């Protein structure tokens, strides 16, 4: 009984740490001008959600992605639930793909991050820029969206390191 209680406490502490990292990521992502490079800023919530999905599995990862998506929606005053749904699907698929086809290492994580970030930013670009019919879409995509993908992917190992550290620190006894 004691062992089970201890195990639950460890799991609780681990997920509390994940949530704190997610809160930090949401704060940094919405911080005006933070790490802005030629007007391009990186995403932080997506890499954290992806890292948790990869280290904890597709279902727990998808759940945290929902929380991350809602945080994103609320901090940016976007349509509530849109990003939550998008991140949930993407993180679930990424976790399954990594489990089946890829080894968990930094290079693969960066590549998975770049692919997922490209998907998220391209969908956002499609809905909020291309479909309203704003001009200069190609230039905008090349000068704003793609650099953001690269920037986010370049910084994503930070999220991986943080999540790996938490996952390694809170290991329930068998």
């Amino acid at each position, binding site marked *: 009984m004691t062992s089970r209680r201890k195990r639950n406490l460890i799991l609780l502490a681990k997920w509390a740490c994940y949530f704190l990292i997610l809160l930090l990521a949401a704060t940094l992502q919405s911080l005006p001008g933070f790490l802005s490079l030629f*007007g391009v800023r990186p995403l932080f919530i997506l890499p954290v959600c992806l890292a948790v999905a990869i280290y904890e599995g597709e279902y727990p990862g998808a759940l945290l992605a929902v929380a991350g998506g809602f945080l994103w929606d609320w901090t940016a005053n976007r349509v509530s639930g849109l990003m939550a749904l998008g991140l949930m699907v993407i993180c679930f698929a990424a976790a399954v793909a990594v489990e089946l086809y890829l080894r968990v290492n930094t290079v693969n994580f960066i590549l998975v991050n770049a692919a997922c970030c490209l998907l998220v930013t391209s969908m956002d670009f499609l809905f909020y820029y291309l479909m309203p019919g704003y001009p200069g879409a190609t230039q*905008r995509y090349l000068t704003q969206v793609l650099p953001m993908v690269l920037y986010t992917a370049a910084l994503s190992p930070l999220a991986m390191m943080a999540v790996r550290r938490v996952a390694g620190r809170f290991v329930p006894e068998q």
Partner: protein
Amino acid sequence: MALAVLLGGIMAWAGANGRLASAPEQILSAVLSPFQKGASAVSGGVGGLLDKYARIDSIIAENEALKQENWELQDKLVEYDRLKAENDAYKERDRLEDDSPEYTYMSAFVIGRDPLEQFGGFTIDLGTLDGVQQGDVVVSDQGYLVGRVLEAGPASSKVMTILQPGSYVACVVSRTRDTGNLNGSADYAADGRCVLENLSRDTLAQVGDAIITTGLGGEFPADIRVGTIEEILPEESGRSSIAVIEPGADVNNVKHVFVITDFETAYGQQAEQAQSASSAPAGE
């Protein structure tokens, strides 16, 4: 006897030359001086080390006290910076209120910017609990138009900027009184510019002319400064002109703004007067 005479001679020589130390002493002193200094340093060092060792507890305590003092000073510095920022904001608000006493200004800080936002939209730290409502006008510290509140939550609000396409504001060229619609443009938004559309084809407006709001429509107060004309281009159809506007506010990087929560436009006053005239008794 001979030694006494010698010593007496040395004393007499030293006295006659006005010097208290004799030549041999000086030579000896010159030779020994480096060793004395070295010995003194070693002695002082050892003495200092022993002294430090003996006073280690008090030094540690003193170090802790200094660290604590340093933290307190850092806290005071942060508090000072915060107070200074607030003071600057209140000064700007007083200046704006002096310029336009008919408006009510509320100081707000920009607390969020979404990296995916394309047209400079941001979130401020005031919401409906503070009296902010959807449609309230947002201006910069210097009183230049930034945008208006798109959505007001309880504690925060989302601001749509003048860079957003579709954010029409009725404006006028201050010098020539040419009217037009200020609108965001996807072509210029990344550079922080917007456009004044529907200017007449033969407009006399020039580069550098100031743009202000007209207050028509009742959504924006009149005479709010917007910016200056950077370039005048013919519209595609050739029937009108478009002026590229450089806003006075740095919309993409603004960190502090004022929300005008209460204002009376000339349009609103006219409507009110018309309503009161029609409701007045006919005999009066």
